[in-house]
């Protein structure tokens, strides 16, 4: 009965011009979105590879220079563009692409793509994730809203029942017929993306397992949507009402609740303003050791402690250049301050995320959105991870430079210059994003909520249609 209904529904859907046109539009939009995204992805990665190479070349060829001058001269950590960002660009556009690494300061990522766009960018971009998250569910509504109401309105439901039809089997046949075209379209999109990405060896590490996980996430999302629309269609008597209710659910789930979640999260756990954030860091910095100022209180204390520790009377008797040593201690103190304040931001982010997770219980869009970005490595967690990795690299680089300065020169020897080939010894910044399994672990609550939605909506659909 299920397969029989599936075949009949597929025939009906295929012959229905309305559905054919809708699918052609989605295919067209998807093709355009993939084309735009592929070009964007290629161009960004070419820039990334070029910028990385150029920046390292500049660093390696500084010539003879004081290590602390080199520390102030700084370098860049570039954020790679990940292969699956082709499908879901996530928050990449708003987080910046590179971080300037210099002495004494933790900088935020800069060159934010969104800031380079005109006001028209407010209309949003045509990206595959937009089609996957918003347009396809809308298409599902158009296809499925009258699936059961039309049987009632036409009177075919009575005829089916008189033939001994079992409600849930008929509905499951319909379910398969609605799901199949969406599955095929999405499968084609993901396969195309996979083939494109796996043939771009220079650009990041592409993993089929991540792509398949992303695909599975969207399939679960669509299954939930189909269930919701069919539950409505089975519950109400008129197709018009079913359409209005289904569209209301789409508006609520995809537009209203995510925006509500965002407002609520910002209201309950606000981020400090940029001015407050900078002022608090400056205040804390002043209270501690300044590597450049040998006369401040903390510097004097360090001096006493160091002399005592090495059992000498003056700084020039120390077996290293105390200026480099103090510089490094100041760097460590500042790094702690930055970690403290950035951790506060992370805690706020985590609290905000908690609100999203709670609201995910009433909107399957939210866990899908977050999982999709996480798997594509375009979410805030990955950005934080990159930002922390860049900061760790900055701290290690500063230690590398300060240690060299301290070991290879004498106290007061500010004219010391490192050899021209010294800079090449600094390890390259190599960022490894979180693995797929780590990403899934981090987003386990989202996975769990999606599964509850999946099983719950199927259960409700089964009981709603059991005795049609």
């Amino acid at each position, binding site marked *: 009965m299920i397969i*029989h*209904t599936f075949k009949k529904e597929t025939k009906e859907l295929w012959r229905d011009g309305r559905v054919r046109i809708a699918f052609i539009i989605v295919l067209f939009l998807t093709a355009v979105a993939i084309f735009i995204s592929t070009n964007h992805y290629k161009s960004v990665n070419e820039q990334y590879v070029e910028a990385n190479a150029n920046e390292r070349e500049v660093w390696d060829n500084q010539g003879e220079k004081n290590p602390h001058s080199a520390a102030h001269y700084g370098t860049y950590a570039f954020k790679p563009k990940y292969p699956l960002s082709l499908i879901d660009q996530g928050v990449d556009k708003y987080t910046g692409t590179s971080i300037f690494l210099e002495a004494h300061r933790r900088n935020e990522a800069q060159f934010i793509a969104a800031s380079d766009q005109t006001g028209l960018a407010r209309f949003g971009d045509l990206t595959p994730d937009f089609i996957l998250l918003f347009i396809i569910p809308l298409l599902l509504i158009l296809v499925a809203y009258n699936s059961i109401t039309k049987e009632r309105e036409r*009177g*075919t439901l009575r005829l089916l*029942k*008189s033939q001994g039809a079992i409600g849930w089997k*008929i509905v499951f046949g319909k379910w398969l017929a609605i799901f199949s075209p969406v599955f095929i379209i999405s499968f084609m999109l993901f396969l195309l993306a996979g083939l494109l990405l796996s043939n771009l060896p220079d650009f990041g590490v592409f993993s089929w397992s991540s792509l398949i996980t992303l695909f599975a996430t969207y399939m679960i999302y669509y299954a939930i949507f189909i269930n919701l629309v069919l539950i409505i269609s089975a519950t109400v008597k008129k197709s018009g009402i079913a359409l209005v209710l289904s569209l209301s659910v789409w508006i609520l789930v995809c537009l209203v609740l995510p925006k509500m979640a965002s407002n609520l999260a910002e209201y309950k756990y606000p981020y400090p303003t940029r001015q407050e954030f900078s002022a608090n860091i400056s205040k804390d910095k002043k209270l501690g050791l300044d590597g450049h100022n040998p006369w401040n209180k903390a510097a004097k204390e360090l001096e006493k402690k160091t002399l005592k520790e090495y059992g000498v009377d003056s700084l020039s008797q120390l077996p290293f250049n105390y200026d480099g040593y103090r510089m490094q201690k100041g760097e460590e103190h500042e790094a702690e301050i930055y970690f403290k304040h950035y951790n506060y931001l992370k805690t706020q982010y985590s609290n905000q995320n908690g609100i999203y997770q709670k609201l995910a219980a009433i909107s399957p869009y939210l866990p899908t959105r977050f999982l999709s970005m996480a798997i594509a490595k375009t979410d805030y967690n990955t950005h934080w991870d990159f930002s922390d990795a860049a900061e760790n690299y900055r701290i290690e680089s500063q230690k590398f430079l300060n240690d060299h300065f301290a070991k290879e020169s004498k106290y007061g020897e500010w004219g010391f210059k490192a050899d021209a080939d010294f800079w090449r010894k600094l390890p390259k910044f190599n960022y490894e994003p979180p693995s797929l399994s780590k990403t899934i672990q981090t987003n386990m609550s989202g996975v769990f909520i999606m599964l509850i939605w999946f099983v719950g909506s199927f259960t409700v659909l089964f009981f709603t249609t059991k005795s049609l």
Partner: protein
Amino acid sequence: MVQIDNLTKTYGDLTALDALSLTVKKGEIYCLLGANGAGKTTTINLLLGFIKPTSGSAYINDVSVVEQPKLTKNHLAYIPENLMLYPSLTAVENLDYFSGIANKKFNKEELETFLVDAGLQTSAFHKSVSKYSKGMRQKVGIAIALAKDAKVLLLDEPTSGLDPKASNEFGQLLQKLRQKEVATLMATHDLFRAKEVATTIGVMKDGQLKQQWAVDELSLKELEDSYLETMSYNSL
């Protein structure tokens, strides 16, 4: 066969069907006559298991409609007043689908044979049913019953709205089914068609079976007079 014993259906204070008892044997065509609201459609709906009776019992081929409604579906076919099919499918496709729902599997030739037996013109077999007349759709309904090999046929005003030719053709199809020992219960307003096809005629009013005649017992004129008399009796 159809066996109904004291079947009653009430909605609050309203009695839609009041202790109805009747039997339709194999090869019989029982026509239920009566005005709107007399209880004819309620009787059909109860036999189809679409609604549950308040009391009484009904059997389709000795299977209880109340206790085993799903099982009774194996034995019956139903044609409503306005049989609607899937408009984008052809007659063959519609027949294939409805037969499949009843767990009957046929090849294309067999399906076409059922449609031929139901009197549908061959040229219409593979055309979308969206342009079918009501009479053509009713013939597909008969084909569905034939394909199901139903022993009981429930008809709810099947000739209403049909032109005389189509109505006559439909009557002939019922006679064919009668020869195959199908027990037919038909709710209708059409006294003349009932006289033509039925073996037994019952007149319902206010949910009760007021009169019942074997068709051979009365002429059309006598039937008409008796019917009118029954319908007006309680109104006086």
